């Protein structure tokens, strides 16, 4: 981050500090619920980071991203059910399965554009949902309980809430750094160029399909990891994780937080889930507010939270066009 600090940077830094110190607060206040909630937020933020890569930076409107949460999650769940509890076996499978699914779906879907792309990614993800829901052995619609969390070497114990939280947080931060470097690399510039003007990119000599596909696979794999974490966090997997409306939730997080920004997905995940918690305390019908709220964001605040934060405060920087993280 260059230059003078802007409000957005301060808020982001404060949020990071808060996240790091959260378990300390939870311990002191005896508030385990918040720790669990924020573990979930952190994991979903990671999923949002992966979606932001293809949606925010790549302009690929995938409406089937939740499928990878399910695939990663079920990789862990199914293997655990069959007696394979080692994380060293489960997690690579989760990643590989997600990557493979992303490769196949991406290869087919990326030949299309715009609305077709949206509908096709949605349809294929829903297909995965039905396939998994059809597996009676693994609980079908009811889902599958995970008796033991993924096992790694001692002293790492995922069953320990605090350790697990820090693991998730570390992985989230690693993911954010990865995306940040990626987006400013040669590869990332191609992806951004493709979002900006695909025809021109091809005229320049880039085989854009190839790059989009690789980006798609990276995003899917990262989300698969988030799925594996989610399975551990909830000690439970169900097809509902990958129902298409969950993909919508992820998109809301990315857009609400601010597409095409490094911190956007994190802002979005925190905002959405915190909003859910507070609103549901007020009224049972909180979604009635969420719907129109989303509508308003779309119509009036396209830059999301990140965009809004950039525009307020004493050292405000006008919406930068490219410098990511700056």
């Amino acid at each position, binding site marked *: 981050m260059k230059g003078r600090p802007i409000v957005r940077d301060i808020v982001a830094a404060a949020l990071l500090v808060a996240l790091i110190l959260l378990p300390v607060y939870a311990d002191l206040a005896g508030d385990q619920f918040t720790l669990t909630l924020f573990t979930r937020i952190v994991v979903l933020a990671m999923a949002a980071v992966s979606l932001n890569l293809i949606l925010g930076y790549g302009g690929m409107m995938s409406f089937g991203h939740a499928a990878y949460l399910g695939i990663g999650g079920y990789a862990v769940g199914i293997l655990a059910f069959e007696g394979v509890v080692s994380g060293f076996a489960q997690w690579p499978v989760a990643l590989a399965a997600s990557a493979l699914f992303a490769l196949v779906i991406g290869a087919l879907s990326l030949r299309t554009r715009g609305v077709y792309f949206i509908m096709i990614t949605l349809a294929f993800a829903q297909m995965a949902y039905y396939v998994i829901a059809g597996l009676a052995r693994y609980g079908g619609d009811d889902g599958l309980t995970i008796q033991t969390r993924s096992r790694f070497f001692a002293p790492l114990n995922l069953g320990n809430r605090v350790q697990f939280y820090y693991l998730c947080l570390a992985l989230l931060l690693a993911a954010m750094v990865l995306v940040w470097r990626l987006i*400013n*690399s*040669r*590869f990332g*510039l191609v992806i951004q160029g493709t979002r900006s003007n695909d025809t021109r990119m091809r005229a320049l000599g*880039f085989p854009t399909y190839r790059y989009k596909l690789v980006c798609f696979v990276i995003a899917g794999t990262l989300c698969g990891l988030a799925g594996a974490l989610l399975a551990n966090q909830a000690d439970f997997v169900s097809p509902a994780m990958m129902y298409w409306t969950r993909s919508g939730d992820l998109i809301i997080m990315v857009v609400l937080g601010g597409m095409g920004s490094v911190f956007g997905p994190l802002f979005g995940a925190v905002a959405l889930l915190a909003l859910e918690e507070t609103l549901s305390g007020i009224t049972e019908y909180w979604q009635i507010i969420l719907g129109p709220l989303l509508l308003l964001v779309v119509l009036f605040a396209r830059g999301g939270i990140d965009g809004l934060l950039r525009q307020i405060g004493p050292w405000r920087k006008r919406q930068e066009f*490219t410098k990511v993280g700056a």
Partner: protein
Amino acid sequence: MSEPLLEVENLAKRFGGIIATDDLALTIAAGELHAVIGPNGAGKTTLIAQLSGQLASDSGRIRFAGNDISALPMHRRSRLGLARSFQITSLFLDLSVLDNVALAVQAQVGHSFRFWRDARREPELRQPARVALERVGLAGRADLPASALSHGEHRQLELAMALAGKPRMLLLDEPMAGLGPEESARMVEMLRALKRELTILLVEHDMEAVFALADRITVLVYGRVIASGAPEDIRANEEVRQAYLGEAEGEVGHG
């Protein structure tokens, strides 16, 4: 006699009932600046689209530097050294001016499956980009978002991007579209300077520019070549006069 750099044979393209390109043949020698003129709807942009690979022809052949590129996709032709500019500005508006040109450089410099290093700090990419911007006179605007540029500057940027990839041949689609007299004159000078280094196919309406720059001219009407040759011959050609130049004769001037 050197082999022609670009050879087009029997090129044809229809859109439903409309014939956009009709048995078109064209030869361009290396180092030549070849202008393609014709009334609106003559199929000039369609021709460029087919040459660059954006549009698939129904039939015919295109040879570039001895290679048959008729079936090659757009990005491959670009890699072979055939670059194009767009009639309607086609830039990366949400990226900076320098980023735009650097992307053009990046396309020709190795592959882009590099995932970590900051590409905006690679001199290999940024240097040639700055040089290209210098040539078209936009060096001072390098760090602005492309959307902040005027229309004339957009045309300059278009040219910079086409040049950045160090192509062998440029397909220029109305580079002067929408430019005022001063900007046009500047563009003509730039193109004149480029003539020495590159082969250029120039589609233009601005007759002054065409006659000032072209080594040879081809006239297109309804997708068909009605005349092709030296500028003086074209100017004297009856058919061409009737079909196209007509009263515009007076505007041609002393070019």
